């Protein structure tokens, strides 16, 4: 009851200085709108760009034999996963409902020849059906030729095709050195041309995994990596932890771990750009906090000075310091809640308008990527709670000053 009455007095005091209250609330509202729209837009761009990277080539999580990633530029054929290791990994993955699909790859470097010229190429031997489920944007990257990868055919990067003057249907030769040092070659028909994608693997070619086994003269299939796609990208860290826990116990005869597991973040330099976006968002949030802090503190300090005699009066009447403190804190809280709620509403409206405007942008050679800004309940709540807490915190010093004021001093104030 007392709290209700304190709130009533607080709100009436805010209404008393309507213009000032409105200005302060507007400032908070603008800050909230700015943060929400920024979070939504950058979140959308970040999500799209991460999606492009992970869904075109990288996948969400990769599992290698321990030591592979340290030598990844060499595409080593000596640090591979044996069929037994593959079986152990599959047993773990099968029990994880969060995993949507996985694909095994044999990665190797070789020579690519059109019979007149030769250049080097990085190749991925994959099971096409599994690869397409794991990196579903791969078919979109095939700008010429067949979308499905047949045995005996090769998908080559666009720049390589141009440079080597080969096109779909041409016969080419791939020559590679296997793990024992012997060289082997195999003819392929160009099945498709791949457009480039930003990030590692963006200039890789694809062949069927059985062709890779043949080129490399493997007695049994030895894999370079297993790539996982998750049903919910938000579960990345949970799945990573779960996989690490399940697979870290597997050791070799020397007692050392057999596997290493990496999320896309550890495998792509684009992660640093994503981090920069996060840091920018953090700075924007800090600016919002400063904005709320300064505006509320300013308005509350003014309120205390202007109402000094009132404070003296209610204190003389016998109002306890705690209630005077609450009265001023509630004023700050009310401005904060008001600003946050209006800001939330306007922010959501702007985000909705951006969505129905169908704004597109380009990324690398990807064009027409649709901006779909989205703000989650968690972000909405986080921004609102930050604003409200900061509003109360900003009111604390003026409120304490009011509650600690000696009535004799306050009553003398003119």
């Amino acid at each position: 009851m007392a709290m209700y009455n304190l709130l009533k007095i607080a709100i009436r005091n805010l209404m008393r200085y309507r213009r000032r209250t409105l200005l302060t609330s507007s400032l908070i509202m603008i800050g909230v709108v700015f943060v929400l729209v920024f979070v939504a837009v950058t979140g959308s761009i970040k999500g799209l760009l991460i999606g492009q990277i992970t869904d075109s080539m990288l996948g969400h999580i990769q599992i290698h034999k321990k030591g592979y990633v340290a030598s990844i530029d060499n595409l080593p054929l000596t640090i591979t996963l044996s069929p037994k290791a593959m079986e152990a990994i599959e047993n773990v993955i099968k029990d994880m409902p969060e995993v949507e699909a996985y694909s095994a790859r044999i990665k190797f470097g070789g020579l690519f020849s059109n019979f007149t010229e030769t250049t080097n190429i990085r190749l991925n031997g994959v099971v096409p059906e599994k690869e397409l489920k794991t990196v579903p944007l791969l078919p979109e990257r095939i700008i010429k030729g067949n979308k499905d990868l047949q045995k005996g055919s090769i998908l080559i990067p666009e720049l390589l095709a141009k440079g080597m003057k080969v096109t779909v249907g041409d016969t080419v030769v791939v020559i590679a050195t296997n793990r024992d040092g012997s060289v082997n070659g195999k003819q392929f028909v160009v099945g498709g041309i791949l457009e480039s994608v930003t990030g590692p693997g963006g200039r890789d070619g694809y062949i069927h995994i059985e062709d890779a086994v043949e080129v490399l003269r493997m007695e049994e299939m030895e894999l370079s990596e297993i790539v996982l796609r998750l049903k919910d990208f938000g579960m990345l860290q949970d799945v990573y932890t779960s996989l690490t826990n399940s697979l870290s116990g597997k050791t070799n005869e020397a007692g050392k771990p057999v596997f290493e597991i990496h999320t896309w973040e550890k495998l792509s330099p684009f992660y640093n750009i994503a981090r920069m976006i996060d840091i920018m968002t953090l700075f924007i949030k800090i600016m919002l906090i400063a904005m709320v802090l300064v505006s509320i503190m300013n308005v509350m300090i003014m309120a205390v000075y202007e109402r000094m005699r009132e404070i003296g009066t209610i204190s003389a009447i016998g109002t306890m310091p705690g209630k005077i403190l609450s009265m001023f804190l509630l004023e700050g809280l009310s401005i904060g809640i008001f600003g946050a709620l209006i800001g939330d509403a306007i922010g959501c409206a702007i985000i909705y308008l951006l969505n129905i405007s169908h704004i597109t942008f380009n990324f690398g050679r990807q064009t027409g990527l649709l901006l779909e800004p989205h703000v989650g309940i968690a972000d909405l709540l986080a921004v609102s709670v930050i604003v409200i807490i900061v509003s109360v915190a900003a009111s604390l010093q003026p409120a304490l000053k009011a509650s600690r004021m000696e009535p004799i001093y306050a009553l003398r104030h003119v």
Partner: protein
Amino acid sequence: MHGNSYKEGHMRLIVAQDIYKDYQVGEVSLRALSDLNFEIEPASFLSFVGPSGSGKTTLLNLIGCLDIPTGGSLTIAGTDVLSLDRKERAAFRGKHMGFIFQDFNLIPVLTVYENIEYPLLMVQNVPSEERRRRVLRLLESVEMMEQKDKYPDQISGGQKQRVAVARALVTEPELVLADEPTANLDSKTAYMIIDLMKVMKEKSGTTFIFSTHDQKIVGAAEILYTLEDGTIVDRKEMGGNGHV
């Protein structure tokens, strides 16, 4: 030694002994009040008079526990008020005292009704029915029933002071302190306010203490203390038939 006199039925509401009050102005200490000794009985209607700077308001602030004397002893309603800390003094004021200010000091965001209700609601936590009964009774007494939903800026100065009187009395305090309560009022309204306070004093047995220059109050007071240079120089029993 005076601590129990009130409770034991000796009927002294206020006992002041050797009170003095010093103010520090820079490095200089100024004595505003010195060696004050007086006793005030319940249901008194008394006034402190004297020229400006004689210490009337300072003394009223000490009696009202708004300020503390530099030395001496002050017992009000059986309590040694010098032993109370800031929160205890606030609680003591809320329980035992009402205040009427020269500038009325109503809370501008509360209606007449809410201003009178404020001490019951925010200080004494009186239940709602009892609160309503007491506020309505006082609104009747001060003839402000028709203005009960108006805000302070919608009523006249005299009406504001009537509301202030009602607010001071609504908690049924033993002591009401009024610093120049008629200074901002015209004669007619001032007499009305004085009469009202006298009626209240007769009805409820509340002690009213004023500090004033106003001859209207001086004439109405039953006891008159004259202060000069921070010292009581005279005490007169007046009979208090000035106006009622």
